[in-house]
């Protein structure tokens, strides 16, 4: 059972959709149960009254990363077979900034807005509708953005390669940074006035 299972051909592709559904249920459940269906809870991270996003996000990232590293070390998984999003420097940064802007206005990100839709948040429904419109607008105006979209492709670059350090060192630093952030978040939370929502 050496993962990733589907690319290795251990699980047939026909199971794809069932697996997608099950993983989606897990994804949605953990998001909603942590409170990601509430935009004001999410936005608390930026104003310092509730760091749930920071906690969930970084805990999830370091948990998955630790799991991948250990499974790779134990030979249960081949890390090199995992899909890496291509890194286009400019479009990643521009996209991130636009998304941050949308985040500040809408208070959701796509995944969390869907959980909001699931429990009946009307603002989440508007946000999700906006997503479709946004993608549509982008696609229609694609010729305008094409240059930026396709420039400076670094392929499946890894952050540790760009920083010139070993992957294990970067992973360790990320874990330490995450723990440090959790500690800092707890300190800030104590000082900032509670917001009732």
């Amino acid at each position, binding site marked *: 059972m050496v993962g990733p299972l589907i690319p290795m051909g251990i699980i047939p592709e026909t199971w794809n959709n069932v697996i997608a559904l099950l993983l989606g249920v897990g994804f949605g459940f953990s998001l909603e149960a942590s409170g990601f269906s509430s935009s004001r809870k999410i936005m608390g991270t930026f104003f310092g009254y509730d760091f749930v996003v920071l906690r969930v996000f970084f805990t999830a990232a370091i948990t998955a990363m630790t799991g991948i590293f250990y499974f790779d070390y134990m030979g249960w998984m081949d890390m090199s077979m995992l899909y890496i999003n291509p890194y286009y420097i400019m479009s990643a940064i521009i996209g991130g900034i636009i*998304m941050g802007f949308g985040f500040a206005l809408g208070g959701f990100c796509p995944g969390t807005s869907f959980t909001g839709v699931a429990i009946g948040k009307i603002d989440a429904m508007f946000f999700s509708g906006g997503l479709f419109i946004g993608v549509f607008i982008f696609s229609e105006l694609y010729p305008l953005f094409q240059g930026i979209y396709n420039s400076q492709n670094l392929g499946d670059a890894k952050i540790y390669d760009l920083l010139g350090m070993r992957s294990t060192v970067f992973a360790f630093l990320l874990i330490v940074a995450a723990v440090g952030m959790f500690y800092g978040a707890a300190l800030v939370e104590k000082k900032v006035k509670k917001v009732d929502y």
Partner: protein
Amino acid sequence: MAKNKRDGSFYINPYLGGVLLGLVLFGTYYITGRGLGASGAVKSSVVSAVHTVAPVHADNNKYYSKFLSDDASPMSNWLVFEVIGVIVGGFLSGTLYGRLKFKIEHSPKITNRTRLVAALVGGILFGVGSQFARGCTSGAALSGMAVLSASGIVTMMAIFGSAYLFSWIFKKLWI
């Protein structure tokens, strides 16, 4: 704790939520070799919707045709099913903790209307941004961070950096 569990104010410990989400993410990588995603599903549904309504237009547009050319691509289907799962999962959790209720959540300082317009604009911006960055917070940033991809970490920093900045500009919307 058991008493107020169903009144909608119960949330699990964020670290537990993070660990669970991390396990789901890890499981996704372990099984499919790819990360989670959400905006990809939006993209593939928009692409197929446009393709159904105006097939010629879709074929002529370079962006649509990029995803139409390999219409058998399992990933686009995969993400749609995953997002259906997200909604189901959110619904389950909402039922379990008593949060199923139509409502508009906003700061007391703004009206419902303002909140909905802001949400819509935010959604549009997020939609555009996620296409630029080839993924959203879950697809690019979270999944990317788990495998230490450069795009994931850069996108994550760009999202949170600019969200932090803009959220103070639009502080009124929230607190």
